[in-house]
Every structure is written in structure tokens, then in C-alpha cells.
């Protein structure tokens, strides 16, 4: 039933739409499962697979028996959250010699990546590999992706992928998302479809002060007021907008197509819903109550939250689940009291939350169209190492670095060193990853809690109409929603009013939002929905 909607067969043709069904099957790589280590917690409710048992570091398996890299040089531009290490550090050297490719990283600030991407792609000097998160695919970026990046189909479609066993083990729904304009362009980072944004809090301080984790919007507000003591330089939290989306069950804003959902036969956009306004209003009240750390007022230019969270200047912030373990490892040696934990998602009224699924792959690495075949092969060699599953030497190297330099082994458990915390960060994990995995042999309790958090949230997660699809909107609508994120932040910080948002939504409808709705409706009618 599902068919090709309107994807670009040629460069000059129309590029908008999606690719599904038979057409997708022709280009998708074959799936060959790898079972190096059986997970202790299998995936459920859209969670990652979890490993909590002790890992025998002495008997790690090898998933890449011989180096596939041919010693070429590959430049990669990628978003980086935190402070990037020196270009020629021990981790990059170790990875490069393991792969057999000289990867040169061009790390850019992840928070303002959208501001660089458009300019870099418009230049004639595009790096060999560019990592693009889905949430940065705004404006004309999708069009740039389709025209600037190489078709990996000839190297990966069908059985060709078997040359790269770790890539063959990447789940098909992640590959499905890597099809842009009818071609396989991306190397995906598979992710759980459960939301990745966790309200993280300082469990050690909560325990000491006797704070209880809130279960409703009102409880959160009351707690926030209790925590805040500006005189002592302590605030409750940072901007909790993302948590508010979850509390009020607002459709996902991480990608444009996820913002649409079919309700009683009519597609509704997240900005048109009452929940959206309610969540904004609640966040506005939070700011107005003075319980938000002043840094959060700065918006995207705010400094890295890590040091001030560790110093206890604020106790709660919403961020990616990976920070749960990242901050734990980072603080473990110098700050043994420090404990960061995730709050289970709750509904604003204290009842069951309503969450919306994220895409099963949200970050992609693309290869420059001008790259030669040998460069493409080298990039795939990189990806085949970074996509190695847990329990292999390659996974250990990608996620923990070099033994003795980036981690030491104590009682059979890897313990990251300061150097490890500084250097083994972002970079290689951005190229391609194994099926969503949570495994922290150094902190198995954190790994267990992370998977349990996902499974709890997953039980309340529904899929919206365009889940799983990779959709390129028609060029004439690309700038339609540009202003919303800014307006959200203006409202929550008290600079604009909720009525300004209502006005913006009605402008959006008349300027093309309603036509875009029709376009999505037709896409849905033609392709059906992937949601099950």
C-alpha cells in the first residue's frame, strides 16, 4: 500500500516528500543481527537495551578483525557539547590507529550548531563528513543535505552492507530514517523512541535536605520555591520548558513532522494545541517565581551547566539522558558525594503522563558528495568501528578510550580518569552507533536506572502520525516555523505574552500553515502511518 510520494528521482526534480514501502526496500541495507553479548535488560517500550552485569575486560571480543581503513585523511564537522579537547589528543590518536583512518575533527558548539551549519554547507569547502542532528534540519538544510551529500546506497544497500558487519547490525528503522530525497545518505545514530530529555536532579542534596521528587506541576513549583535561596546563590532549576512539554503532553518539537498528529481525521500541529500554551504558561510562571538560575535567562548563550550544577547553584535541569552517566563519571573522583539522578516523568495534574515518541534515529553523519570512493570507504571503516556493539574492544575504545590513559581498571571495573573525561567525549560516537545501548560497566546502577527510566516513560509513550518517516517539506514552507522557538523563550522569560503566541499561530495558519496541513494530509493518505 505505501508508495513513493514525491521523492526526487533526479537532482532537478521535486525533492520533497518521503520514501517508504517498496521504494525504500530497494535501498535499505540488509539486517544481520550481532549477538556479541546478551543484554541484561532487553529493550521494552521503546527503551534501549541495558547491560548491568560486570564486564570481563580481559576477554572482550573483536568485531573488526582487520582494519578496513586505508590510511586516508577524513575531516569531520560535528556538534560538540562541552569543551572540546586538543585536536591531536591520545583518544583521537588511539581511535585513528584502531580504524586505520586519519580522522581530523572540526568540533563546533552544539548549542549554536544551527548557526554554523547553513553557512558551511553553502560554501564550496564542505568537510568530508558532516554530522547533522534532526533538530538542526530547519530552513533549507534538508535541501542542502539532498544536494551536497553522497549516495551511500552503492556501498550499503541490500547485501553490500555485509562488508561492514557492525553497520549491518544497525536496526532497519534507523536506516529507514537515513533516506533523504529517495537515496540512502545518512549514517544513523539509532536512538530509543522514548524521549531523551530527562529532568535530572542532585539526589545527594535532595536526600540530605529531605526534598521529595515532585509528582505534579504544583508540587514542582512548591519544591522549586522551597529550594531557592538566591542570597546563598542557590536556585531550583534551569529552564524547564522541555519538562513542561512532557508534563502537559505536548507533541514533540524535535522535528517538524513529529509536530503533526491526526485527531478525529484532521491533522493538528503542536502549536495549535491547548497543551502547548499551558506548558508555556507554566514555564513562564516558573521564571516569574524567581526559582530559575539567572544563567538560564541567557538562553542558548548560557554557559555549560555542568560546573554550576556540581557546585549546587541549581539542583534540577532537563537535558539528554546521556548526561546522567556523563556527569556521574565526571564528578566521581573529585566530588564523591555528588549524585545525579533522573526524575520519572510525571503529568501536570499528577495523573498518568502522555508522552510522544521521538524518532528511532535522530542524528546522522553525511559524506560529502565530492568525496572520492576511497574517502567514502574510509568513512564507512570509521562507522563500522564506532557502531561496534557493547562487549567488543571497539566499543570499549570508542566509549572509554585507551586503557591506562583514559581509564584504569579497578576490581575489574573501568574507572575514567580526568583525561578520559576531557577527551573521550562526543566525536566518534556521533558518526554511527550500534542499536541504542545503555551500558556503563563503571556505574551499573546508573545504567539500570537509565533503562528503567526509559521503560517507565515508554509505558506512557504514543507514536504520532509521522513517526519513523524521513520527510522533506516543500521549499516554500521551510521558513514558516522559524520564529516559534524564539517566541517560546520570549514568553517564558516574560518578554512577550501568550496572546502573542496565539497571534503568531494564526499568522502561521494564514501564511501557509493550513496549506502545509493539506500537504501532510496527502502524504499520510498516500503512505499510511508507520505508527503501530
Amino acid at each position, binding site marked *: 500500500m505505501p508508495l513513493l510520494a514525491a521523492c526526487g528521482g533526479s537532482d532537478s526534480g521535486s525533492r520533497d516528500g518521503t520514501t517508504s514501502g517498496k521504494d525504500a526496500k530497494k535501498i535499505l541495507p540488509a539486517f544481520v543481527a550481532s549477538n556479541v553479548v546478551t543484554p541484561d535488560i532487553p529493550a521494552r517500550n521503546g527503551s534501549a537495551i541495558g547491560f548491568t552485569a560486570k564486564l570481563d575486560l580481559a576477554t572482550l571480543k573483536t568485531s573488526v578483525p582487520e582494519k578496513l581503513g586505508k590510511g586516508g585523511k577524513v575531516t569531520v564537522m560535528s556538534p560538540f557539547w562541552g569543551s572540546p579537547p586538543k585536536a591531536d589528543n591520545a583518544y583521537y590518536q588511539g581511535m585513528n590507529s584502531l580504524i586505520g583512518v586519519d580522522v581530523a575533527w572540526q568540533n563546533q558548539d552544539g548549542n549554536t550548531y544551527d548557526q554554523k551549519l547553513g553557512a558551511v554547507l553553502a560554501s564550496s569547502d564542505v568537510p568530508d563528513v558532516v554530522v547533522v542532528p534532526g533538530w538542526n534540519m530547519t530552513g533549507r538544510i534538508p535541501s542542502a543535505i539532498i544536494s551536497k551529500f553522497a549516495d551511500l546506497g552503492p556501498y550499503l544497500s541490500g547485501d553490500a552492507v555485509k562488508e561492514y558487519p557492525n553497520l549491518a547490525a544497525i536496526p532497519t528503522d534507523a536506516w529507514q530514517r537515513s533516506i533523504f530525497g529517495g537515496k540512502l545518505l545518512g549514517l544513523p545514530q539509532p536512538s530509543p523512541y522514548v524521549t531523551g530529555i530527562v529532568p535530572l536532579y542532585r539526589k545527594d542534596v535532595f536526600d540530605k535536605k529531605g526534598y521529595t521528587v515532585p509528582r505534579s506541576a504544583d508540587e514542582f513549583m512548591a519544591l522549586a520555591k522551597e529550594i531557592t535561596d*538566591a542570597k546563598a546563590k542557590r536556585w531550583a532549576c534551569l529552564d524547564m520548558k522541555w519538562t513542561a512539554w512532557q508534563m502537559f503532553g505536548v507533541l514533540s518539537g524535535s522535528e517538524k513532522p513529529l509536530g503533526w498528529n491526526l485527531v478525529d481525521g484532521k491533522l493538528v500541529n503542536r502549536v495549535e494545541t491547548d497543551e502547548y500554551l499551558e506548558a508555556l504558561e507554566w514555564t513562564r510562571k516558573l521564571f516569574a517565581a524567581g526559582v530559575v538560575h539567572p544563567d538560564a535567562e541567557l538562553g542558548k548563550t548560557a554557559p555549560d551547566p555542568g560546573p554550576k550544577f556540581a557546585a549546587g547553584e541549581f539542583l534540577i535541569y532537563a537535558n539528554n539522558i546521556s548526561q546522567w552517566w556523563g556527569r556521574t563519571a565526571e564528578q566521581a573522583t573529585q566530588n564523591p558525594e555528588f549524585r545525579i539522578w533522573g526524575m520519572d516523568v510525571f503529568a501536570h495534574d499528577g495523573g498518568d503522563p502522555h508522552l510522544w515518541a521521538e524518532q528511532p534515529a535522530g542524528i546522522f553523519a553525511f559524506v560529502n558528495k565530492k568525496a572520492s570512493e576511497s574517502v567514502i570507504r574510509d568513512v564507512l571503516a570509521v562507522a563500522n568501528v564506532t557502531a561496534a556493539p557493547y562487549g567488543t574492544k571497539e566499543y570499549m575504545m570508542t566509549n572509554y578510550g585507551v586503557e591506562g590513559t583514559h581509564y584504569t581498571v579497578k576490581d575489574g571495573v573501568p574507572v575514567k580518569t580526568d583525561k578520559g573525561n576531557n577527551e573521550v567525549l562526543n566525536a566518534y560516537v556521533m558518526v554511527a552507533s550500534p542499536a541504542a545501548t545503555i551500558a556503563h560497566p563503571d556505574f551499573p546502577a546508573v545504567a539500570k536506572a537509565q533503562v528503567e527510566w526509559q521503560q517507565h516513560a515508554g509505558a506512557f509513550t504514543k507514536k504520532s502520525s509521522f513517526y519513523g518517516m524521513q520527510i522533506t517539506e516543500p521549499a516554500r514552507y521551510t521558513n514558516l516555523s522559524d520564529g516559534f522557538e524564539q517566541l517560546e523563550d520570549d514568553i517564558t522569560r516574560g518578554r512577550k505574552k501568550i496572546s502573542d503566541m496565539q497571534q503568531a499561530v494564526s499568522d502561521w495558519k494564514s501564511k501557509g500553515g493550513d496549506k502545509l496541513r493539506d500537504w501532510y494530509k496527502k502524504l499520510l493518505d498516500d503512505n499510511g502511518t508507520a505508527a503501530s
Partner: protein
Amino acid sequence: MAHSTVPRSEAEADETANTPAAPGGEAAARRKPPSGRLSLRVRFRRDRVLLLMTLPALLLVLVFSYVPILGNVVAFQDYDPYVSDNGIVSILHSPWVGFDNFQRIFADSAFWGAVRNTLVLFGLQLVLYFPIPIMLALLINSVVRPKVRALSQAILYLPHFFSWVLVIAVFQQLFGGAGLLSQLLRQHGYDGLDIMTDPATFKFLITAESVWKDAGWGIIVFLAALASVPTDLYEAAAMDGAGRWRRMWHVTLPALRPVIALLLVLRVGDALTVGFEQILLQRDAVGPGASEVLDTFVWWNGVRNQDFGYAAAAGLVKGVVSLGLVLAANKAAHLMGEQGVYKK
């Protein structure tokens, strides 16, 4: 006006002495009346070394200022830079839309908001910033001891070499919501004061930052002008019984007048350019409503949202208005009897 004639005739005397002083000792040229009536060939021969020396700068201006102007054609297009790897090919492949982008701009309240912010900031900077380097130069000029003078100059120049990121970080540490000032207030029982994120006072903040960073640097031109005032003028004035203030009013300030007029003309011509990096870095802190100026508007729509044709149209509007302003300011300078930027 009598007081101003002295330094001005001085300057004119300088000029006539300078122009024919071409290298090579062209005695013939020297005897002829000053430039303008010589044939092009003779003038070229006379000034060839000077012309040669300006050539590299001319080339830079051509390549980096004039050639890119041609790119403004995208203002009349729905420009998509991604259709090819080459900007020119992309222009050829992008559809022409006539004046659509301009129509959109004039109907866009965000654009008019940016215009308003730009003009308000320009006015504030003119009143609060422009006089400060002059005052500083007069102060420095009155310092007699060379060591003290060199030290204070160094201290005044230093902030110019800090990047905006650093300047704003320093301001944030001092005046931010969790900064030194706020915490001090809280210690003493008052409410904290977040100067860095207050849209109402943002324009004053921007001006204050500029003053701190660049006012010291701005005194160089004035110091040079002050150094050229002959000391005998002061002596003569003193002999006539002029005190400190009268000497400053009748000797120093008139000497600075041409420079002030020139810089004022340049500043007015640049009125729509009120800072880019500085404002962009703080855009999120107060929101675009208070902070968006024409340059950040262009950047945001073009580079961030990839709506290049639209951004180019806004940039073009700004360029045309700026050209008008510089012509008008120059005319005004002539009417006031000053040199201005150029003369026909």
C-alpha cells in the same frame, strides 16, 4: 567665527605645501598651479609612486568590497545556495522573484523593529559614546608627565584588544543575575539586579559595553590632531590673558573641529551599523524584540534560516539608506564650512 580661522588657515597652508611634494623632485610640477589643471598624464607621472603604494589596498577593496556587491542580485531571487557548489551557478539556477522579497520586508514587523532598534542605538551612541573619546583625549593631553601619560594611554587602549566574548563574559560576571553586584545586593537584603537580561535597559548596556571597550581606542585620532596644534598659539593666547578654559575653547577645540566633523560624517554614514557580534552574542539574553538590529536581522534570516534572498534584500535596503545618509552628512559638513569626507 574669528577664533576658528587661525587653525584652519594653518591646515590649508599645510595642504598646499604637501600636494606638490611628490618624490623625484619634479621641479616643473612645483611651479605650476596646484592640482586639478594638470593633464592626466603629467599627474600620473608625478604621483606614480603614491599610486603604486595604494594599489594593494585598492585591490583588497575591489575583491572584498566591490565584487561581493554583485552578489546582491540574490535579493531579487528565491536564492538557494545549495543547488550547486558554486555561488554563481546557484544564482543562475535560482528562480527570479522580482520585488517579492522587498514587499515581504516592508510588511514584516520584525524588520521595522530592527530598524527602530538600530536608530535608537545610533542616537544613544551618538550622544553617550561619541563625545567620550574627545573628552578623554583632552584629559590625556593635559597630562604632562610622560610616564603617567603612557600608562594611562595603555590602560585606555587595552580593552580594545579584548574580544566581545570576553567583554560580555566580564560584564556577565559583574552585572549578571548571579553576578558580583546582584549577590552583593542580596547579601545586604535587597533584590538582585539582572542588568544583563533586562530588555528595557539593554540599549544602555550595549552602549556602556562599547564605551568600556572602544572609547579609549577612539582617542588616538584626537590625540594626533591635538599634537599638531602649534604651541605658540597657546603661548599667544596666554599672553592675551586667556585662562585654561578659554584656551581650550578658542585654541584646542577649533583645532579638533575638522577631525570631529570628519568622524561625525563617517559615523552618520555608518548610522545603520551599530554593532554585530556584540549584539548577536546577547540576542538570546533579552530576545530579538529589544536587541535585533539590521545587521543581526540580516544574519539571522540569511545565515541562520537560510532565507538568503530575503536577507539580501534587507541588506540592500540598509546599504541604499546608508549611502543616502553619508551623502547628506557630507553635504551638511560642507555647508558648515568643513572638509567632510571628500570634495568634488
